């Protein structure tokens, strides 16, 4: 029983302080899961989870919660508890934010705030794209060909899901 409680507390904490999503949450997850006092995973295990997260759909926080919950407790319940715990703080906080926003969206001051936030959000997406242009994602000229092809296809509004599937199949054919 203690293990479920520990899992809940640790992943609740990760959900509560994990600002910025994705890779911004990695140091926090690592700190909670690899370091004292729990030491649930070795550094090598953690690197594996990151790699598996990159290969599977879904947010990395959810992936690591499910994985750690399962391996630490040896049962599906551990995975469920950890995944639930990591979603709980965002659920409560985001609900409050949504409620507040939907009520005050017409407010003059809200409009002022969002006028400035729009460019900032585009900046954040640009940052995400820039960070992802690394040697892990671009291994050779074939990667660049895929990049250019998908870039053009996206401009023509081709369904992203179809593009992902086609890109994956191209990967199998090309590599």
């Amino acid at each position, binding site marked *: 029983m203690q293990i479920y409680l520990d899992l809940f507390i640790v992943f609740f904490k990760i959900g509560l302080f994990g600002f910025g999503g*994705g890779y*911004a949450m990695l140091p926090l997850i690592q700190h909670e899961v690899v370091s004292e006092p729990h030491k649930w995973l070795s550094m090598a295990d953690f690197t594996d989870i990151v790699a598996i997260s990159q290969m599977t759909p*879904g947010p990395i926080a959810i992936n690591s919660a499910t994985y750690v919950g399962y391996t630490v407790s040896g049962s599906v319940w551990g995975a469920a508890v950890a*995944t639930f715990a990591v979603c709980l703080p965002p659920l409560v906080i*985001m609900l409050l934010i949504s409620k507040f926003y939907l009520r005050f969206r017409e407010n003059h001051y809200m409009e002022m705030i969002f006028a400035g936030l729009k460019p900032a959000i585009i900046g954040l*997406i640009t940052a995400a794209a820039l960070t992802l*242009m690394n040697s892990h994602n671009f291994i050779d000229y074939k990667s660049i060909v895929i990049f250019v092809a998908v870039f053009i296809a996206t401009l023509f509004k081709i369904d992203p899901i179809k593009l992902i599937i086609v890109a994956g199949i191209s990967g199998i054919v090309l590599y």
Partner: protein
Amino acid sequence: MLKEPKMPILLQMFLTFFKIGMFTLGGGYAMVPLIQREIVEKRGWVEESEFFELLALAQSSPGPIAVNSSIFVGYKVAGVTGSIVATLGTTLPSFFIILLIAAWLVGFRSNPHVEAFFKGIRPAVVAMIAAPLFSLSRAMGIGWKGLTLVAAVAMLVAFAGFSPAILIGITAICSLLYGIWQKRRQQGA
């Protein structure tokens, strides 16, 4: 909020977010084009103009962007129940897949076909994040002043390691002060 019978809407929402959760490979922003397609264009649950507000809100709360976005859309369409259903839809695909891998597919990672598949997907995801940036900026009517802010935020986050949440907070406060200052100036003139 929509006044249709709740059950079909909830089911629709679960399936739509399940689909998004299933195909969000490569981290939070990879879902931006998916949300735009499924939620804005196909379903119309969020208007094009609200899309940015959705992203801003999702960034200002802790937790994965994918989860936060589904909570907002779910709440907007069908209240608290909607947000729970949408969150379940987004998280269940990863939950089952990771469970499967943790329990049985220990060799999943080193399978050469899986590896080749992802070698193809990775640059595609980057392209899908980068390509809409131009049309998004145009749709938002971002001028030179805005572009400076875009560049500044992009640089600070990508190369100086600034936290997106903190930058959003700072930008929000500055925009508010700037808006008030402009209003005062107009009234004074």
